[in-house]
């Protein structure tokens, strides 16, 4: 199946060892990429090599291995800086996941800048990780969390947003792409309206980073976060991009080794730049693995990945749409390759269990987006999410399996 002329998906699939597995005797159709993506061999090799060839703790060390390890670790920071086009290395902070990135901003920026009655604007599309940290800091500071609503297609309601923005709005935190239903939000307009209102903006790019080129200079967000395991990198690593002038003024988040300048019991001073926010031994090998993942993705290129994924999305939408009992949840005009659906009279958990026997891995549940589920008045949905290594055969397996579900319960 020749999806595109210069994009050879079958060749790409060979770079991902797990994709050749069989599950319950059926070829694996891995369509749970929204939850976490698979890793190319290049990432596994980089991890192994970092452990068995150059491993030691980073920074502070003058011996060879420590130096080699530091160079790889800091090299990964540069890989990511270049990939997202951040202005400087100090704007790229390694965290453990996107959730921690958001907590860091909420706690550090929020504590220093929020007071009673200030408003934090989110949207109904948000993942719990972009809701709960704001609720926690709101409780501590007396600020108020508000959610910009979405319409029946799952679109961010921009006009309502403009009405909600006001002098009390201090922070706007919105997802770039909804993990549950794939909506791409108009972040350019969201950001410039927020900036006009004097608010800073955090964009949750957890679902965008695997699907599109993200350019910090073009986007202009004050903070942008994403998570390593969804961009084909290891677990245990996340990214926080922040504008240097904001980061400089923020108090540290966690305290410990590596983030200090000088410690005494009387007075401790803190490091500058990204170090201030990286307490303790960092996720060294995970950063190196993430660098390898980004390098790998760039050998393919998002210019190729985008059209391939969109063609899968269109194909899957059309095919699933032909099944009577299927209802697709979320039909925004701009969507990433994520489809949520329900089936008449059949619970998503039963769908999930049944298609699994056909080798089809999809996610069922609330996708950590309960306010969104409440909006569509469902407790859960089934969700198929595509990565660039998925092919039409995966879509066919999904459709066959979903038809099987209908038959089974029919």
């Amino acid at each position, binding site marked *: 199946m020749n999806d595109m002329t210069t994009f050879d998906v079958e060749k790409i699939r060979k770079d991902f060892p797990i994709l050749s597995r069989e599950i319950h005797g059926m070829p694996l159709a891995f369509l749970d990429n929204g939850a976490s993506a698979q890793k190319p061999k290049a990432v596994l090799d980089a991890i192994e090599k970092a452990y068995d060839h150059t491993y030691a703790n980073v920074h502070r060390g003058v011996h060879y291995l420590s130096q080699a390890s530091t160079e790889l670790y800091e090299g990964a920071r540069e890989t990511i800086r270049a990939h997202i086009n951040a202005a400087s290395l100090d704007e790229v902070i390694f965290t453990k996941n996107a959730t921690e990135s958001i907590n860091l901003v909420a706690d550090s920026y929020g504590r220093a800048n929020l007071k009673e009655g200030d408003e934090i604007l989110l949207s109904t599309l948000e993942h719990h990780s972009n809701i709960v940290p704001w609720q926690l800091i709101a409780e501590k500071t007396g600020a108020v969390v508000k959610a910009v609503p979405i319409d029946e297609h799952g679109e961010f309601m921009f006009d309502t947003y403009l009405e909600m923005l006001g002098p009390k709005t201090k922070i706007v935190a919105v997802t770039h792409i909804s993990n549950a239903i794939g909506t791409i939000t108009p972040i350019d307009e969201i950001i410039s309206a927020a900036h006009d209102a004097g608010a800073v903006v955090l964009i949750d790019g957890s679902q965008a980073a695997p699907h599109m080129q993200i350019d910090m200079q073009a986007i202009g967000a004050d903070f942008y976060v994403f998570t390593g395991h969804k961009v084909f990198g290891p677990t245990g690593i996340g990214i926080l991009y922040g504008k240097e002038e904001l980061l400089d003024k923020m108090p540290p988040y966690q305290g410990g080794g590596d983030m200090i300048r000088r410690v005494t019991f009387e007075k401790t001073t803190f490091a500058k730049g990204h170090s201030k926010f990286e307490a303790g031994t960092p996720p060294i090998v995970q950063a190196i693995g993430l660098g390898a993942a980004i390098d790998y993705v760039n050998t393919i290129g998002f210019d190729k990945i985008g059209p391939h994924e969109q063609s899968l999305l269109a194909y899957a939408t059309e095919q699933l749409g032909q099944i009577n009992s299927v209802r697709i949840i979320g039909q925004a005009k701009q969507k990433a390759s994520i489809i949520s659906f329900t089936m008449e009279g059949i619970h998503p958990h039963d769908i999930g269990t049944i298609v699994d026997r056909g080798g089809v891995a999809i996610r069922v549940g*609330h996708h950590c987006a309960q306010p969104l589920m409440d909006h569509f008045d469902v407790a859960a949905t089934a969700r198929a999410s595509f990565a660039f290594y998925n092919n039409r055969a995966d879509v066919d397996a999904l459709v066959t399996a979903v038809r099987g579900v209908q038959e089974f319960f029919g």
Partner: protein
Amino acid sequence: MFDDLRELYQEVILDHSKHPRNFRHPDDANHEAHGYNPLCGDTLNVYLKMGHNGLIEDAAFEGKGCAISLASASMMTEIITGKTETEAKVLFDGFQKLVKGEEATIDAGDDTERLMVLAGVKEFPMRVKCATLAWHAMSSAMDGEEEASTE
């Protein structure tokens, strides 16, 4: 692809899930609890009418859920009606061991066969919480707790 699944989704289960028994809110219930499965967001309420000596005179439920949780709730209400509180808890205990795969069978007298219908769940660890949700709620209701969850 469906062979294993027939083990899980036996005819009886599909029947109970499509036509749940005792799916109602009795006016004279004197114990109730809300069951919540944070994994999928499913919720159901269990209503009990408890009489003298801890006798369960009536058991019913309402709520949303998957085939497994609805069937399990439906069958549970049938089975525990007429039992004492202690008997119901012993059944719950045995049932939990069964669906978790800790015990291969359950010895529940006349109810053995009906409970064994859900034994297939043990092959599907992620569905154990579906099968036990109503039972947790039942147990909480008897203990006077309002909330039960399968966490």
